[in-house]
C-alpha cells in the first residue's frame, strides 16, 4: 500500500507538491475562558493539518463548536494561532512582519462570511466593499476604473444589471444577492484562495444551489480554490473534491469526498451520515442511540474526544489521543479502532498475497 497515487492534499505525504497553495500544520488555537485569572482553556482548534491545492474545492465539515469557523479565521489572519503554522506556497505566514507583506497575503487569501445580514456595512451602498478592496489591492486603477471593475465583478457573480445594483444598500437586496456581493468583494483582488464560511447556511434552500453553482463556476473560470466550511454533508458533496471532518477542534477524517461518504472510517462520520436527512431514503425510524450532546472542549485532557459518545470506544480511547493516520491512499482517519482494522485488513491482504505467490 504505497502513497504513489496520493492526490494533492494528502496531509501525510512527505514531498511538498508544487500545486499546494495554502497549508496548515498543527494549527492550534486556545482561548482563556472565565476572566483574566482563570485557568480554564477552551481548545477551539487542536493540531489541525490542512492542505488546499490549486483549483481545488476542499470542504471542512463539522457541527457547531467543532472549530471549523475558527480554522477559517486563523487562515484569514483574524486570530493568531496559539501553536502550529500556516504556510502560503511553502513560506510561513508568521514571517510576515511588514504591512506590505501582510497585505500581499490578504490579496491572495480572501473570505466570504456566513451572515448576509451583517457581512455588508449597512451605511454604504453595496459597491463599497468591492471598491475598497480594489483601492487597497489594485492601486493602479483610477476611481473611474474601480467603479467599472466593480460593475464587472457584480455581473460576474450574477447580479445584473450591475449599474442598478451598485447603488443599492444592503437592506434593499435579498439574502442571496447579498452573498453574491460578498463573493464579488472577495474576488476583487483576484485571490488564489477564498475561505467560504458557511456561505449558504442562512439562505433559503432554493437560493443555495445558485450560490454553490457560483462557486464551482468561479473555480472553473477564475481558477480560484475554495475552502468550503459547512455543517451540511450534502452540500459539501455537491461542490467539493475533498472533505475534512472536524469534531471538537480536531480533524477526525480526511479524504476524497466520495470515498469518505461511501466508506467512512471514523465513527463520528458514520454518525453524521446516519443523521443526515435524506428524503428519498426508505423510512427508518431507528434511533441513532445518540442525542447530540456536545463534547468537552474546556481543559479536555488526552484521549479521543468522541469517546464518551462512541459505540466502538475502547480502553485506549480514553487515554491516548488518536492522530490522523492514512488508512488507504489519500484517506485518513483519527481513530484507534479504525487504525487497527485497517492494519489487520492490510495484513490479511499481505498474507493472501503471500499465499498466492
Amino acid at each position: 500500500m504505497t502513497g504513489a497515487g496520493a492526490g494533492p492534499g494528502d496531509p501525510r505525504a512527505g514531498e511538498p507538491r508544487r500545486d499546494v497553495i495554502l497549508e496548515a500544520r498543527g494549527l492550534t488555537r486556545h482561548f482563556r475562558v472565565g476572566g483574566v485569572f482563570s485557568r480554564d482553556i477552551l481548545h477551539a482548534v487542536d493540531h489541525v493539518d490542512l492542505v488546499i491545492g490549486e483549483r481545488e474545492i476542499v470542504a471542512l465539515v463539522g457541527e457547531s463548536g467543532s472549530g471549523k469557523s475558527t480554522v477559517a479565521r486563523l487562515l484569514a489572519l483574524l486570530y493568531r494561532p496559539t501553536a502550529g503554522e500556516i504556510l502560503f506556497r511553502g513560506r510561513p505566514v508568521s514571517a510576515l512582519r511588514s504591512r506590505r507583506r501582510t497585505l500581499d497575503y490578504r490579496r491572495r487569501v480572501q473570505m466570504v462570511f456566513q451572515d448576509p445580514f451583517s457581512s455588508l456595512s449597512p451605511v454604504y451602498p453595496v459597491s463599497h466593499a468591492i471598491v475598497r478592496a480594489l483601492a487597497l489591492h489594485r492601486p493602479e486603477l483610477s476611481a473611474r476604473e474601480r467603479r467599472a471593475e466593480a460593475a464587472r465583478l457584480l455581473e460576474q457573480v450574477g447580479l445584473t444589471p450591475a449599474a442598478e445594483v451598485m447603488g443599492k444598500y444592503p437592506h434593499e437586496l435579498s439574502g442571496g444577492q447579498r452573498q453574491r456581493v460578498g463573493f464579488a468583494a472577495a474576488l476583487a483582488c483576484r485571490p488564489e484562495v477564498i475561505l467560504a464560511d458557511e456561505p449558504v447556511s442562512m439562505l433559503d434552500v432554493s437560493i443555495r444551489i445558485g450560490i454553490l453553482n457560483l462557486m464551482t463556476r468561479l473555480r472553473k473560470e477564475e481558477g480560484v480554490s475554495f475552502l468550503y466550511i459547512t455543517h451540511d454533508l450534502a452540500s459539501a458533496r455537491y461542490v467539493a473534491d475533498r472533505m475534512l471532518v472536524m469534531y471538537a477542534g480536531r480533524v477526525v477524517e480526511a479524504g476524497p469526498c466520495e470515498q469518505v461518504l461511501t466508506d467512512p472510517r471514523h465513527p463520528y462520520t458514520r454518525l453524521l451520515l446516519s443523521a443526515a436527512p435524506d428524503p428519498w431514503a426508505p423510512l427508518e425510524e431507528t434511533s441513532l442511540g445518540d442525542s447530540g450532546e456536545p463534547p468537552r472542549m474546556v481543559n479536555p485532557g488526552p484521549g479521543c474526544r468522541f469517546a464518551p459518545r462512541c459505540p466502538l470506544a475502547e480502553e485506549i480511547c480514553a487515554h491516548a489521543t488518536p492522530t490522523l493516520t492514512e488508512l488507504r491512499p489519500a484517506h485518513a482517519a483519527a481513530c484507534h479502532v479504525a487504525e487497527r482494522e485497517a492494519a489487520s485488513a492490510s495484513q490479511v491482504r499481505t498474507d493472501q498475497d503471500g499465499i498466492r505467490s
Partner: protein
Amino acid sequence: MPAAPAEPLLEVEDLVVEYGLDPPVRAVDQVSMRVERGEFVGIVGESGCGKSTLLYGIGRLLGPPARIVSGSVRFRGENMVELTDEELRRIRWRDYSVVMQSAMNALNPVLSIGAQLEDAIAAHERMPPDRMRERAAEVLRLVGIDPIHLKSYPHQLSGGMRQRAMIAMALVFSPDLVIMDEPTSALDVVAQRSLMLRVKRLQRELGFAVLFVTHDMSLVSHFSDRLAIMYAGQLVELGPTRELFTNPRHPYSVGLLQAFPSVFGERRRLTGIPGNPPDLRRPPPGCRFQPRCPRAFEPCGQVEPGEHRVGATDLVRCHLFARSEVVR
C-alpha cells in the same frame, strides 16, 4: 392509532391574515386545510411564505399589526377566531400548546426549568404544589431529561435539552394538538434527528396531533403524514408526504425538491429556482409563482388558479390541473 372520528381535530377555512394598513400586506391568503386527530402535518416553505404567520394565526397568537381578516379556524368544533381572550385562555395549553423556534428566546433565563414548568401549570389549573412538582418531573422524564434538572437554569442545559424542555412544557396537560414553529432549526444535525424521533415517539404514545412548520423539507419528510407547501402566502400543494415526494405536482414543489443536493444517490447538477419570491405588497396578477415558473402558460399571468384534487394529492393550486376535480 386512535380511530378517526368524522370531525377533524382542526379545520382551517379560507383564513386570511394581513399586516399593516397602508397598503395592507396579505401574509396568509385564503388558506384551507384540516388536521385529523393524531396526525402529523408539516408546513413547508421558504422565508416570507407566511408559514409562521399561518401557524400563529391558527394558535390565535398574533398581535398587532397582524390581524385575522376573515376565515375560520375550527378546533374541536369551536371557531377559534370568534373566541374571546378569556375563552381562549381556557383551552390554551390544555387542548393545544405551542413550541417556539428558539428555546433561549422562549425560556426565562433567570428561572429554573422546574419553576417555569410549574408556572405553566399554575397558569391554567389549580393544583397543589407537590402535585405540580410531580407532574413537572413526569413530563421531563417523558422527554428524556433527568428530573434532577428541575433545578437547572436554561443556560446550563445544552441546546438539544433546552428544546426538549420546551416540548415538555408543551405536553404538561397532554393537549390534543401541539403546534411547533421550527423547533429544530437551532440544533445540529444529530440533535435534530434525535429530537424528531423523540417527538414522533411521544406522538404515538400520547396520541396528539402535530402541526410542524419548517423550511427544511428533508427533515420533516420522514415524520409527517401529510405535507403542506406554502408560497407567497398561499397553500400551493397539500398531500400525503410520500406522494408529494415521489410525485410532486405543483412546479414550485418540483423545483423545491430539486434544490436539495443529496448525500446518497446520484451526484448531479442542480439548478434551484431562479428569481425571488414576490413582494407581498404588490403580488403579481394571476398565479403568484408565475414569474418564476418554467411551465407557465396563458392563463397563469391573468387568472388566479383554483385548488384541485389530483390523484392521491389533496390539493394543488395550479392551472396545469384545471381539468381535475375542483376542491374549491
